[in-house]
């Protein structure tokens, strides 16, 4: 399946493209792994604009055409 991907902050150093291909039935956690983004560097993930909290990253299934946004942690400043 094809996903639209947007990453924010310094995470662009891990993945700078705007889309990726993943096996059907992939979870959010598997998508992060496929993108090469360390999970400890992720502040929040949203799918189609809806937040996916850490506890459900491993079970939230993705579908072809989904829009995945991977946000860096916030630090103030």
């Amino acid at each position: 399946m094809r996903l639209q991907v947007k990453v924010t902050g310094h995470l662009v150093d891990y993945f700078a493209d705007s889309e990726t291909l993943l096996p059907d039935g992939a979870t959010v956690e598997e998508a992060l792994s496929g993108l090469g983004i360390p999970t400890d560097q992720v502040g929040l993930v949203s799918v189609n604009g809806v937040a996916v909290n850490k506890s459900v990253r491993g079970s939230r299934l993705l579908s072809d055409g989904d829009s995945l946004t991977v946000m860096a942690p916030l630090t103030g400043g």
Partner: protein
Amino acid sequence: MSWQRQILRVNLTDSTIRAEPLNMQWASDYIGERGLGTKYLWENMDPKAEPLGPDNVLIFATGPLTGTSASTSGRYAVLTKSPLTGAIACSNSGGKFGAELKYAGYDLLLVEGRAEEPVYLRIEDGDVSLHPAKKIWGKTVWETEEWIRQEHNNPMLKVATIGIAGERGVRYAAVVNDLHRAAGRSGVGAVMGSKNLKAVAARGTCGVSVDDPKRFMEVTSRMKDMLAGDRGTRGLTKYGTNAMMDTMQEFGGLPTRNFKEVQFEGYDKVDARAMLAIGADGHRNLVTNTACFGCTIACGRISHIHKDHFTIVNRKEYWHASGGLEYETAYAFGPVVGIDDIDACTFAGYLMNEHGIDPISFGVTLAAAMELFEMGVISTEETDGIELKFGNAQALTVMAEKTGKQEGFGEVLGLGSRRMCEKYGYPELSMTVKGQEFAGYDSRALQGMGLGYATGNRGACHLKHDTFEVDMEDQTGSGKAEPCKASQDWQAVVDSSGLCMFTMGAWGPEEFAEQLDADSEGDWTVDRMTESGERIWNLERMFNMAAGLTSADDTLPQRLLKDPAPSGTAKGRVNELDLMLPEYYRLRGWTDDGQPTTETLKRLGLG
């Protein structure tokens, strides 16, 4: 033991200068910098004093680690009673001035009274003198720093100064040091101006000693390795704090057009990647990054503006590189005023540094003025013909300069958002807490941030607590009181140490404790430091209560409590302050109306 063990007391009314021993018991109880300065403020002034009157006290305080070889050890704080909020003000800055003040022989500078005529203070290795400042009264920050160095034929002097904004009582005037680092918030520069004190110039060669040099060197070297190895911290080096802009956009917490919206369509024209982008003509906004004293992160930005941009095309004096956009300045000149012109934003940032103004308060005040203009409440007759509409980049830069020089409508903007909105009869449009303007995080998306804003001892402030992680994970108000309270206490520790908060991505409490323990006499543990942080927070609260603030001031604007977020991950939510605040008071050991109980004060040694 990195203390010099003496402070400097300067009374401007009678021009007396006196060195006094540092109160080591207070240094032990309050750590330094923010905490120690709060204690000195508490003991040396009546909290009911008029902020711009001679009875207010102005303090420049270093921390125990300021000036040491620890990374980011250039921090100092300016404390006073704020003319913006009427509450305690504690504004933290980097650069090199703080370390220089300590090298000159003083841990803390306490200024009282008011000079009859403008003066500046020179401190060189224990040689301290007041000088007439008539020749530099009316000069900019940049002109003043240069003039003082030339006057004393000493290019090594580090200068903390105010611009015209501070002289003229702009309620959010800053104290700027080293050209573009600032104790920016809460109007500490206006207090300095009210005392007729234009600048403080310091140069020292004393150095500092630490309690256990061998261990200190080992510990701080290891801590620098931790910073270098931390991927998030490396992101600060490469992208600066403005790397947060696109995160806030995607999260839906980016205050836009005076908080009417939470996402800005033009965010990617003013964010960190826009600063790095190279245009067709080879121009790039970001020139390089820069570091404060002793810092191994170097998050500071140095930028330049396209020479044919309307702001500087006929003003060659701005064709140089200078302090660039941080996240807060990018937010305050971008989304919150609906502007996506990076050169205009950069120029407005120059003007803030040059004239000594807090960019957050200026931008949010301008945003309220733009909303009033679009409502028809303010007209072009008042704004010197400027169309004060959201998105008008010319309005931003013209008003930044007018505010800096206190000309025309700039005098109205200099009041700050609360006073300006009250003047026009629309106080609900002021995006402030206790009169201080919000930083770039919307409380509907970041619930714990909203609680921290509401309970902030200096009003709306994003730097006195850290609930980002829990706020991103859960967009409700549930369970936010405890991390808010705990992070407020710990942030008070970091702010009191002499080190920078941007180390906190790599360093936890143990790392701070290890460095302070190697640096200072006595045993410094996380538990002891955490208790000190709670003591500091409560003493700040006591100052505010004595100044006349109440629990009614622990609130948020109705827009954030009543109007749901129109988009983003928190779409449909309002801030749940009514859920969080009672739990917060209980966790603090305060009464239902926000007063620290006798037991709490006794436990912290404050009763």
